[in-house]
């Protein structure tokens, strides 16, 4: 697993959860950038060659859906994994992300889904349909 060195951007206003997620992803071999809100997340996204984004939905100020829409405008090819504590998000929000999962599904599920998002060559990422492949 150490051979992976994709750069992943994690955005979440929950500091504890974000810290733990960072450790988890780093142990899994990713390089990780973290942001505590949508605005700083977008700055990092624009400034760094991010390979994938793990985005929390419910955040003060800009919610995950709004952040994802702006990211799509900047770099549409970067896959976005939308995380949420809520079970039912509106379809117009989930359709913006490549993948949507609820918090609490566990670390293997997260790593698996992120791995699937990143495993195909970068050229075909934007059109990837990972919902079926994720399980």
């Amino acid at each position, binding site marked *: 697993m150490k051979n992976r060195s994709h750069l992943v951007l994690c955005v979440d*206003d*929950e500091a*504890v*959860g974000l810290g*733990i*997620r960072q*450790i*988890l992803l780093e*142990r899994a071999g990713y390089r990780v950038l973290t942001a505590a809100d949508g605005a700083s997340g977008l700055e990092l996204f624009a400034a760094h060659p991010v390979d994938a984004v793990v985005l929390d939905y*419910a*955040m*003060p*100020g800009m*919610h995950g859906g709004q952040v994802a829409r702006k990211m799509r405008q900047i770099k549409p090819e970067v896959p976005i994994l939308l*995380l949420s*504590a*809520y*079970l039912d998000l509106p379809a117009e929000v989930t359709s913006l992300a490549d993948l949507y999962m*609820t*918090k*609490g*599904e*566990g*670390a*293997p599920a*997260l790593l698996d889904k992120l791995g699937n998002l990143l495993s195909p060559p970068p050229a075909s990422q934007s059109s990837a349909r990972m919902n079926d492949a994720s399980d």
Partner: protein
Amino acid sequence: MEFKRFKRTLRQVLLLPIVACLLLAGVLVWQISGANSTVGLIEDSDQRIALATLIEKLVVDEETGLRGYQTTSDPRFLAPFRDAEAPMQQAIDKLQSMARPEQQEDLKQFLAEHRIWRQVFAEPLIATIVGGGHADDLDLNLLGKSHMDSMRAHLDAIVAIATQGREGRVAHWRRQTRHLLFLLIGLALAIGLFVGLFTRGRLESAYAAFRHAIDLQRRRAEEIFQSEQHLRTTLSSIGDGVITCDAEARIQMMNPVAQKLTGWTESEALNRPLDQVFRIVNETTRMPVENPVAKVQRLKGIVTIGNHTTLLRKDGSEFSVDDSGAPIRNAAGQITGIVMVFRDITLQLKTRAALLANEKLAVAGRLAATIAHEIHNPLDSVANLLYLLQHEPKAEEAKQFIQMAQRELARVTQISRAMLSLYRESKAPVSVNLKETLDDLLLLMHRRFQILGVTVSAELPPDIVVEGFPAELRQVFTNLITNAAEAAGQGGAVTVRITPQTADTAASPALEAGAIVEIIDNGPGIPPENREHLFSPFFTTKGERGTGLGLWVSQGIIRKHAGSINLASRTDGPAHGATARVFLAAKPIIDPASE
């Protein structure tokens, strides 16, 4: 026709025949007096005839006396001759005075003949006989006879004229009588016709007036009937029960709804005392409630009965009733009766209860999303930590991860406990620690404040305890804090503060021991036009997101806790925002009825 005119007509009808009869009588009197004068004239004629006849008789007496004397020479035979002189003179004077002109001539000639007869024939004859001579000279006697014949002829002429005049007058009298008869018949006909026609005309106009009055009366009666029918229909159609009573609270009228609700028919209930038919008791104590009629009479105005009143129907079944009574006053303003309007509010109360339960759920629903978030976030961290622990042999790090996981789990437990206490309800009031209650709520709502971008500061001194129903108080505070946070908005601030209040009976108004909970936001404030509607049900400024029941329910709960709730607001200046202020008594007398 007015009464005055009718009286005048009556007078006319009475007087006119009298006047007409008087007129007739006048004409009769005139006519009869005419006939009477004719009769007088006839009597004159009769008298003249009588006088002439008397004179003739006296002349005969004179001649007879004279002849007797002439034959016998006895002076006793001469007595009639002598005796006739005086009455004759009298009769002649009288006849002279009343003789008509055409008779005067005959009378004059008769007098002349008579004088001559006496002086030239009678007196010399008597003197001759007295002297002893013979008076049987033929010529003398013939002369005397011719005078006598002439006298008789003149008297006969007088009688004939008088008789002729009398006959003419009798004929005239007969004509007069006939005329009078015709006149009488004609006048009687005319007057009868006139009086009849006049009376008929007057009677007709009186009858027309009478008919008109009757018609008017009938039309009015019809109108009154229609109006009463209209009112009756209106009363019958009213969806509420309506009972009217007289001043002694005896039932006078019940509409169909009232009959249905009480189980009494109108005929059964008529004139019964109201409290036999309209039996109301307190829902919980089952004690009779003061009858609205008694209350109306006591307070002399419109009254309503309180909530939680139950009407006992005739068949023993019952339902919740809402009622009002109003006095019926006469023109002088005295109360002559009472009208009561009431309705079955069982469904309304059930609807209200459902609404309250729904609002409770809505509060929970609004919190559910944040609660899910609050639980899933620590659970996610714990799951990730467990994964790391599985793959991380380093003892140092493992210890750190376990500590982190414990902290996160403690957070879940806290949230879960706070959430459960939100719905836990006790039957009786319990001691509520306001700081703990508000801390729990702020914890549950923490996420929501973050999302809204609101900074919340709490000034919650410990150990302030009031008695109440904790779940209901949480509902109130959740509503007020949510309102404040939503009003404050992004970058706004909300302060939650508890201030203890000590009892002060000297203050005005007297202060009760308890606590004041203030929730202050620095939002735009409440526009003046909305302020009076704040506590009305279904009033919301949040569109689809709000039920419009939050403050209404909150007010009900606080009233039940014998507390008070008010909202102060400023929309201008730097101090804009709103302050919700709730007073809760430390030992309230909980009134379940005021909810």
